[in-house]
């Protein structure tokens, strides 16, 4: 039953782990790598349950062992997380001592270390020998969302498993379940890969105002009327006073421009599907070079926002260039 939670999103990972388990080839060290919100930690605990579950249909999620792992109460399953943003050497030494002791309960030992990119240099080097030659029946699961920052000596000792970002329709479904309407959900799903953040953005009423504004602006661009500056000024969304709002605005505008480009390339599978008919009727009025130019301009503006530039000027500059 548990497997269904991940099966749709991390099919490949589950396939690797289940195949290894069934063939009796589970490695002693795994490195789970992938973006935030891809259920790395959940699957790490899933693996632990797989090792301990007493039921025949493993893992059941109901038996004593499964429940204890679920609540982080199992003595043989240890989770280490960064303290004050770093994993210190002391934590690794503690881990080594803890695992040198014989277990209170029969069965393997599992230790899960989260965010190992936050390890201090000392800690990272201390764990090397431990990963390579662990005590028998010990499993290490390292988790990170930043593979580039990890020592190559650690990577080479583990089996690296790559977690794919959540598929967008998964996020859309999740938002719909939380009573967000379809068109907004589709757009918000493009903004982030994290379910919680997506819900937070989507529940903000502002977002639908921003979407309306973006659509309005695109209409004007397509019909070559020259008053988007005024529209923006008069809009009830005050973009100028809030950086976050401005970023969402730019992101959503970028998505819509991407849609224009898709339609231009005869691809009807777009995010703003409620606008499809209008775009199709008017797309011939704009050159494809102009669309690319607009995308480029939006990206430049996004970068400039990061440098504390004057937002009012930036936005005006962008809107004038978009025409």
């Amino acid at each position: 039953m548990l497997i269904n939670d991940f099966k749709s999103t991390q099919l490949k990972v589950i396939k690797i782990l289940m195949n290894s388990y069934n063939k009796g080839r589970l490695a002693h060290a795994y490195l789970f790598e992938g973006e935030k919100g891809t259920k790395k930690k959940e699957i790490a605990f899933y693996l632990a349950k797989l090792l301990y579950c007493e039921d025949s249909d493993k893992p059941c999620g109901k038996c004593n062992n499964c429940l204890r792992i679920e609540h982080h109460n199992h003595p043989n399953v240890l989770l280490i997380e960064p303290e004050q943003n770093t994993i210190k050497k002391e934590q690794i030494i503690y881990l080594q001592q803890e695992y040198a002791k014989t277990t209170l309960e029969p069965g393997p030992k599992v230790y899960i270390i989260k965010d190992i990119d936050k390890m201090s240099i000392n800690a990272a080097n201390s764990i090397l020998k431990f990963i390579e030659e662990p005590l028998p029946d010990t499993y290490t699961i390292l988790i990170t969302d930043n593979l580039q920052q990890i020592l190559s000596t650690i990577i080479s000792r583990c089996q690296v498993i790559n977690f794919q970002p959540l598929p967008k329709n998964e996020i859309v479904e999740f938002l719909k379940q939380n009573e967000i309407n379809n068109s907004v959900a589709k757009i918000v799903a493009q903004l982030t890969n994290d379910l919680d953040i997506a819900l937070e953005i989507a529940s903000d009423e502002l977002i639908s105002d921003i979407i309306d504004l973006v659509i309005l602006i695109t209409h004007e661009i397509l019909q070559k009327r020259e008053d988007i500056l005024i529209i923006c000024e008069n809009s009830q969304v005050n973009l100028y006073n809030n950086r976050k709002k401005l970023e969402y605005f730019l992101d959503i505008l970028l998505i819509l421009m991407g849609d224009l480009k898709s339609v231009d390339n005869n691809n009807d599978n777009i995010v703003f599907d409620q606008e499809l008919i209008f775009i199709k009727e008017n797309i011939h009025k704009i050159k494809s070079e102009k669309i690319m130019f607009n995308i480029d301009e939006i990206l430049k503006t996004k970068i400039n926002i990061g440098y504390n530039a004057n937002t009012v000027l930036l936005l005006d500059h962008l809107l004038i260039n978009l025409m």
Partner: protein
Amino acid sequence: MFVQNYYNLCYNIKEIVLMKEGDILSYKTLYRTYRPKMFSDVVGQEHITRTFKNALLKDKISHAYLFTGPRGTGKTSVAKIIAKTVNCVKSPTDEPCNVCESCSSINSGFDNDVYEIDAASNNGVDEIREIRDKVKYAPTTSRFKVYIIDEVHMLSTGAFNALLKTLEEPPSHVIFILATTEPHKIPATIISRCQRFDFKSISIKDIVARMKYIISVENIKIEEKAIYTIAKNAQGGMRDALSLLDQVISYSENIVIEEDVHEITGTVSEEKLANIVQYLILGNVNEAICSVDDLISRGKEPLRLIENLIFYFRDIFLINKMEKIDEQLVTNNSDETKEIAAKISENNLFELILILNNTQYEMRKTNQPRVFIELALFELVNKLFIKDIKIEKKEVKENTLKKVIKESETKTEINDSTEKKYIDVSVIEKILNNANKEKKENLKSNWSSIYGININLTNIEQLLIDGQVEAVSNDNKILLSYEVDAECSRLYEKDVYDKAISILNSLFHENYQIVSLPLKIWNEKKGEFIEQFKNNIKQPKLSPITEPIIIKKNNNKFEYEPEIVKEAIGIFGEEIINIK
């Protein structure tokens, strides 16, 4: 040491308990099962194994060795083999027997006279003192006491110095073997007391040969092409190769095929990359975008894709440059790639790689990497697709001329809060002529530790991190390049510069000075320098820099006032409020 002993002791107890219960030990991964047990098993390090075989046979063993080299090349394995050979009952011999009591106890990992010390966990002076105190006791059962100190670069300075005397003149029954991946962190005094052996990255040919042996023993069905793909991906590390092999075996159903390897590593096959580039050369962006979209929808990550493309163009560059293609260096070397390589000019390649590199950099910062890839493809097509070049060039020249005129007009009107500065090129010349590569590498690898100073980065630390260390001179002048001109010029503001220097000096305990340059200018000057250097000019001279850097003058007003401050000013008026 205490931890280590304790650890070993518990290891023994646990082993016994497990055996009594008749428990099945967990699966041992390939790289642990097939760890070389004798010199003939060690792959790709003939220069080392032969030296040792001869030395051991003639019983001429030194008391201290230092093994260096990248991960997965056999440092620890060779150290263990030496430990076995010197203590083997058949000694002096050139191979351990792996049968006698001593050999088998070392193989199982708990021999009384072979100490495998993890220097990273035991890096203090105290642990080293313990070694120093104990070396004088004779070995319990064997001829030699062997200390294998792994990850030795993690020892503290104090620990290193405590080890010096023992390392130089140990009792005759002691052998030290130090192993590390980072030899530049080892003090010269340690290095000079050891015989140093550099382990090479293992060639693709050797990795393939070893994997084939393992495959035949384990009876695994695998495609020939898949073996090569794994070997390419391992980048010279045997352990990486075997880890990957292990994973692919677990993943595949019956027979391992090449696509399985790509699937697991998230890489894109050479064929598909070649396809995309072909489309670009033909000027067919839409097809190129379609095939990229197809790859992404089948689960390839956009970031990896760009990385693969960068490497693909790099290989094309090497194919164009080299007379005879070195398969170790150029992994994408099919006939199709060579065909493509012939069509692309060298100058173009630099720009292509630069575009992709910038794209990769930008992609890390956004949630919509796909847009960036598509944009990059459009840019690439402009560079690759050869239209009527002459007309275009003319247009461009005119345009740029106009732009230059416009810019010079606007620049004269710059308001008075900024200041122009021309960087003195002789400073850069001096740095480049006195460049110290080791210092640069050292600083570069530690550069990210600026992150560690403070949990909340101040903007000055951020500014430093954003810079790219390009060169470090002997007198500790650092040359930084910045992609964004505004960031570069910030380092010419006096108070920013002072703070930056104090951060650096307190972190690295050196007296550093910083010279920052915009990336564009740096690339120009670098090119000039390299060209002259190639023409055997020992002290190249650079042409002066004509573009000024625009520096903001100090402005003490806060750019952004928090809401509450604004409100306070609104109530009390600006003169009364004192912001702390």
